[in-house]
């Protein structure tokens, strides 16, 4: 009886999990294969469905990187190279700002009983929809000549992801035992040196997790880049959605190719920091 229950539970478990995985994977698989399909296979008749490209091609990638391909009569002046560089630069710099500012602030709050309202004020940043303050931010950015520059976009990314770096580092610092720091203080180290030489090396791994997590968030943004870039520093998601041509209509394959490129880094980084994702997503409130 017991064994029978066990087996039926296992069967049920695998059935459900495999069904869920299939559903979760279909959109990803579809976009991936579409990126390698030639123009003729971008769309098919309603009665047939082609999972794998019949004539796989790199034409879509060729088109987005060189602006032309034998398969299409059109050419495109804006290639994907610059948006990819822009996304990398802006997400990295934004991450740097968020993590440096957040780490310093978190240590100050965690150790020295200053800024009692600070953690909640920081959290508010995440509560508000960006749309609500969009107009003043856009005006501020244009007054300060920050629109469509990499530093301008990095700055807003640094601010928007500050809640995550701040709260994550705060919970990490809260967990570091004070005894070691106190021992270093007794030996006459200044408090800054204790932070820099003793505590920071102890949270190296959590810090790396925070960096990767914040990078994923910055890389994933669409709406802020849509509002604050024009042409020089357009990021990948904005570029992707501008890829429509009046002559050929939807550029399905080319968009899928750039979408695939956009999707890869966060998935890889996400798998690397898998263990700490719960912590990151809940602002440090939950551990795994």
């Amino acid at each position: 009886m017991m064994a029978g229950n066990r087996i039926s539970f296992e069967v049920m478990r695998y059935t459900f999990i495999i069904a869920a995985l299939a559903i979760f994977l279909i959109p990803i698989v579809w976009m991936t294969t579409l990126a390698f399909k030639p123009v003729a296979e971008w769309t098919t008749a309603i009665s047939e469905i082609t999972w794998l490209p019949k004539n796989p091609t790199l034409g879509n990638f060729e088109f987005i990187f060189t602006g032309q391909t034998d398969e299409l009569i059109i050419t495109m002046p804006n290639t994907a190279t610059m948006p990819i560089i822009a996304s990398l630069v802006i997400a990295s710099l934004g991450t740097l700002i968020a993590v440096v500012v957040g780490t310093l602030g978190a240590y100050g709050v965690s150790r020295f009983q200053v800024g009692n309202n600070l953690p909640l004020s920081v959290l508010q940043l995440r509560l508000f929809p960006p749309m609500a303050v969009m107009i003043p931010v856009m005006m501020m950015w244009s007054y300060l000549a920050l629109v469509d520059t990499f530093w301008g976009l990095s700055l807003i990314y640094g601010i928007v992801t500050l809640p995550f770096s701040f709260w994550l580092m705060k919970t990490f610092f809260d967990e570091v035992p004070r005894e070691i720091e106190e021992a270093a203080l007794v030996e006459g180290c200044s408090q800054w040196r204790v932070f820099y030489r003793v505590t920071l090396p102890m949270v190296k791994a959590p810090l790396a997790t925070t960096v990767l997590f914040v990078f994923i968030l910055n890389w994933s943004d669409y709406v802020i880049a849509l509002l604050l870039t024009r042409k020089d520093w357009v990021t990948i998601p904005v570029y992707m959605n501008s890829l429509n041509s009046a002559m050929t209509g939807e550029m399905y394959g080319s968009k899928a190719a750039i979408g695939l490129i956009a999707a890869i880094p966060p998935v890889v980084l996400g798998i690397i920091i898998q263990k700490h994702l719960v912590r990151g997503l809940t602002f440090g409130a939950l551990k795994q």
Partner: protein
Amino acid sequence: MASNPQTLTLAQQGAKLGRWMTLPTQLLLVFIFAFPGLMIIYVSLSWWGPLEGVPWYYAYESLNWFENYIYLFEDERLWGSIWRTLLIMLVVVPVEFFLGLGLAILFVDNFTGKRVFYSILLMPMMIVPAVAGYMFYILFQSNGPVNQLLSLITGFEIDILWLSETDNAFVAIMIADIWQWTPLMFLILLAGLLGVPEDQLKAATLLGANWGQKFLRIALPKMRIVMIIALVIRAVEAFKLFDVMYVMTKGGPGVATETISVYVYKVTFMELEWSYVSAIGFAILMFLTALGAIGIIILSNAQKKRLANVVD
């Protein structure tokens, strides 16, 4: 002890260093809250817009006090978008919650392939939302794979206009959101389930509790805070919904799938009524601040209760 000069200076030193270390955070907060906050309040009390030909600080010339806020209550398109946002929230968040919980229950104990399944299951959450929106945009084309799959399964030629008919577009957007964020619920709820003390479960087993009883009586009460956190995080993000929806339907057909964020975006760039947008923005900020305050009170009460339970 308290008058020991050594410890006093150390504490003072600490406070000083702490103020310096929190300064950048404070500056960034002031930078992003002070000017934008004051500006939307000021501009929202006027008719000012980018077509007025004068800079925003001349907004007092067309001061109208609370006309924008009064119009807020009469604006059917705004209330429509709020209603749609809430509707999406009320459907997707519970669906994601229960799907996530179901999956999490399947993942509590060890089985072959767990790690691989787990990694794959987390992938949708990691996809850039705008890209996820685009994936579903392709899937739901009338000659796209969803219709093709349905045709294959049913044997009829199914030609559903997913994105250009109101109800269908709604369903399509909700499916995209559920696809992307069920993994997040799964992840958080699994962490909660794994955090349930094992000795209590063992004790219950010894006392003859079955699986359902253990789940309802022991695991669920212990997971209350985890569940609240998961629901709050998803609800906040669902309220901001923009990327996926904007990529899939741009709020269309017409205004049929407009959420609050998409509506604000359109009024800003198509109708250019910036003073009115400021009024909407300020109202949203106030509303969310109030909601956030209530949430924090509830959470801290729950935390106190939990601490009290531990003491018992």
